[in-house]
């Protein structure tokens, strides 16, 4: 048992008041280690809410620096941070919100050479990336390492998310492989309403906290999609695909793959 300080009891009082969380749940949150991949539109709200909730250790992977065009939605970065590595900017805000959180920063791309090493340090992974090669990499690495993760994607006025636990449907059950380079636009090409990132990211943060506290039902074997134009939310039941190349009955993928990225996405680096 953690001995809560007076300050912690006060800080987390609204969690502790919840019957489903209580002191025990808050302790689980404080013992949790979460990796957030991407400190952008999704990673920003995810990191802010996880820090505020008291997650014990938050790792952040991002190789970008803050750009003026990020500030419309990446609410963890401020105007003064333009030009600063996103992981440094995010670390500063997390510490300001909650000095108890241990922050690990990875100022690098997640790729096949480092993914498993980084992921193994954490209990839960949040995909806040903006491109398909890394979404598939996170999926494959988490399936291989037996780690749960939250998938998130946003575009224009839409969002979709699901949560993977070992033995439930993975991203490759939904989509076998990344779309050809340039075939599907990313936010940097097609745009996104800033608040959509907050809507989707806070769902991912809630799923993360539900995972550690064991509350309710996770978005496993379900894909949640929404269209903010109509504010219609929908969950589609999905099943693990027995022929899935990574989590199926006879997996054919035995190593991590670095898929090619769209040239227009790479030019920013």
């Amino acid at each position, binding site marked *: 048992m953690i001995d809560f300080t007076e300050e912690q009891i006060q800080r987390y009082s609204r969690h502790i008041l919840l019957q489903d969380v209580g002191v025990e749940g808050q302790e689980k949150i404080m013992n949790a280690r979460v990796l957030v991949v*991407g*400190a*952008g*539109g*999704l*990673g920003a709200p995810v990191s802010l809410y996880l820090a505020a909730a008291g997650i014990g250790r938050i790792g952040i992977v*991002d190789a*970008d620096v803050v750009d003026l065009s*990020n500030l419309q939605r990446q609410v963890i970065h401020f105007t003064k941070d333009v030009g600063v590595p996103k992981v440094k900017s995010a670390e500063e805000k997390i510490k300001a919100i909650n000095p108890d959180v241990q922050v690990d920063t990875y100022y690098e791309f997640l790729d096949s050479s480092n993914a498993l090493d980084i992921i193994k340090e954490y209990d839960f992974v949040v*995909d*806040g*990336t*903006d*491109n*398909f090669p890394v*979404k598939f990499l996170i999926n494959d690495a988490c399936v291989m390492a037996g780690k749960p993760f939250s998938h*998130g*994607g*946003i*575009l224009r006025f*839409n*969002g*979709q998310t699901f949560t993977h636990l070992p033995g439930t449907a993975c991203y490759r*059950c*939904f*989509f076998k492989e990344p*779309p050809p380079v340039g*075939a*599907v*636009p*990313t*936010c*940097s090409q*097609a745009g*996104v309403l800033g608040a959509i*990132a907050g809507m989707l990211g806070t769902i991912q943060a809630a799923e993360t906290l539900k995972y550690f506290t064991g509350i309710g039902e996770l978005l496993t074997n379900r*894909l949640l999609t929404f269209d903010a134009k109509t504010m219609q939310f*929908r969950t*589609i*039941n*999905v*099943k693990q*695909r027995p*022929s899935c190349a990574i989590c199926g009955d006879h997996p054919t993928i035995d190593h991590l793959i670095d898929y090619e990225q769209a040239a227009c*996405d790479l030019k*920013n680096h």
Partner: protein
Amino acid sequence: MAKIYVNGDAQEVSLPLNVSELISQNNVAQPDMVSVQVNEEFAEREDWEKIQLKEGDKVDFLYFMGGGAR
């Protein structure tokens, strides 16, 4: 005529109708990118022309959504 459910919404369709035909009827953007479930089971792309739809079937089109970080 038969009633089927596409992404949760009822649609009146004429049978026979296979999954490929439904995709073109619905003007699905980039059909080569879409993932299809019929009655909550993934339908392999190579089976789309073989799968005949029937009254009450539930079809879901799942789309790639890639944004997040940048």
